[in-house]
């Protein structure tokens, strides 16, 4: 189901392989409590970017996604949930229906429904969402925009911008081009960020 199937990978350093094994143990464990789509408990229903994978560019998808690896660029999962796992390191603006952060994010977060910041999270960036929760102990530096009007405006702008933009080199699209996506994942594709992504990031900073 997942285009970022960890089982397809066999290379990597010993450290990466150990991380991968730890990760696989975790995703196999049922998770108690929490939202159904916000963690490893539902990982079998969501695409996964494993801890040794580095993606550069615009990452799009039409399914839930868990990131335990590194992503640089932009992540767009409109209508779906994104979980940044505890190993995840994101240097990107993120657009999703629900964003759950356990790991590290440098960039702006746009949650159409909500953004959940867990206690292990380390975020430097702005959050725009109608609902934001932050667990005690989380490290956060940035602004949280909770004004419903401003949030809707920001989301509307995002949707309008993303709707008219096609994927380009270095883009991983979960819905339509799984072969491209897998290649981008496993080879640490260093595609160009789209101009749209760059402008969206700037607009995002100002939106807060």
């Amino acid at each position: 189901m997942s285009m970022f199937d960890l089982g397809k990978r066999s290379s990597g350093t010993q450290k990466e392989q150990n991380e991968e094994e730890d990760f696989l143990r975790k995703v196999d464990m049922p998770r108690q409590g929490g939202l159904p789509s916000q963690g490893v408990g539902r990982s079998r229903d969501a695409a996964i970017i494993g801890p040794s994978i580095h993606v550069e560019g615009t990452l799009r998808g039409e399914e839930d996604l868990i990131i335990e690896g590194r992503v640089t660029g932009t992540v767009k999962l409109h209508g779906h949930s994104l979980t940044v796992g505890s190993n995840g390191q994101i240097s990107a603006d993120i657009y999703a229906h629900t964003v759950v952060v356990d790991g590290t994010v440098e960039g702006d977060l746009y949650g159409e429904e909500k953004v959940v910041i867990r206690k292990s999270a380390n975020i430097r960036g702005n959050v725009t969402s109608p609902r934001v929760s932050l667990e005690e102990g989380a490290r956060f530096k940035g602004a949280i925009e909770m004004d419903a009007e401003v949030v809707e405006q920001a989301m509307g702008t995002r949707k309008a911008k993303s709707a008219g933009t096609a994927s380009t080199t270095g883009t991983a699209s979960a819905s339509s081009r799984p072969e491209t996506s897998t290649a981008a994942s496993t080879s640490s594709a260093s595609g160009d960020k789209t101009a749209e992504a760059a402008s969206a990031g700037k607009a995002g900073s100002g939106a807060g």
Partner: protein
Amino acid sequence: MSAVTVNTGSAAGPGTGGVAASTDAFHAKLLEQALQPLLDGERMEVLDLGNAHGETVDFFSGLRVRFAVAAIEQDLRALDEVDDEDILALRLNELLTEELVGGARVVLAWDLLNYLQPRVISAFMARLADLLPAGALVHGFVAYGVKALPENPRALVICRHGWLRTLTRPDEATRDVRNQAAGNLQRLMPDFRMIRAMLLRDGMQECLFRR
């Protein structure tokens, strides 16, 4: 202002990040006053100089607010070691950016002013004055009738409108108070005017400064 005890029904548990939930809440009337427009439906931009706390985020959730978290308490305290005034100004410019601070109508300084050297307070407030609009309010607590303070600033959270609660750190050491009389503070921040101060039962003075 008298301290009261409320039963929050919570105890330290998962997600408390090294601090335990205190059950003592106290009424901070000046904070209530500062944030009242928000409760009346106005949009506001609020800057928290302390660390992010879930309970405070919960309080602001659903209100028309841009809540900026600077998380610079430790960074500001480290400026005590900086002797060069130019470097001090440069560091403050890095810590307090226009994107983060600009437009804030209320600044939550918590206990910070008790933990900074006068020269750092002066430079810090001058930087804030550069970024804040006229009429912006800075809210904080000043040690007035206390002889010792916790080694680190209290982790205060807004538990409901006008009410604060301390997240206690276990086995916290204390330090002598670096006395900041209101008059002295005022001299350190010529761009601000102390518009109200209230002495709380624990000896702290709740203060409101206007840009």
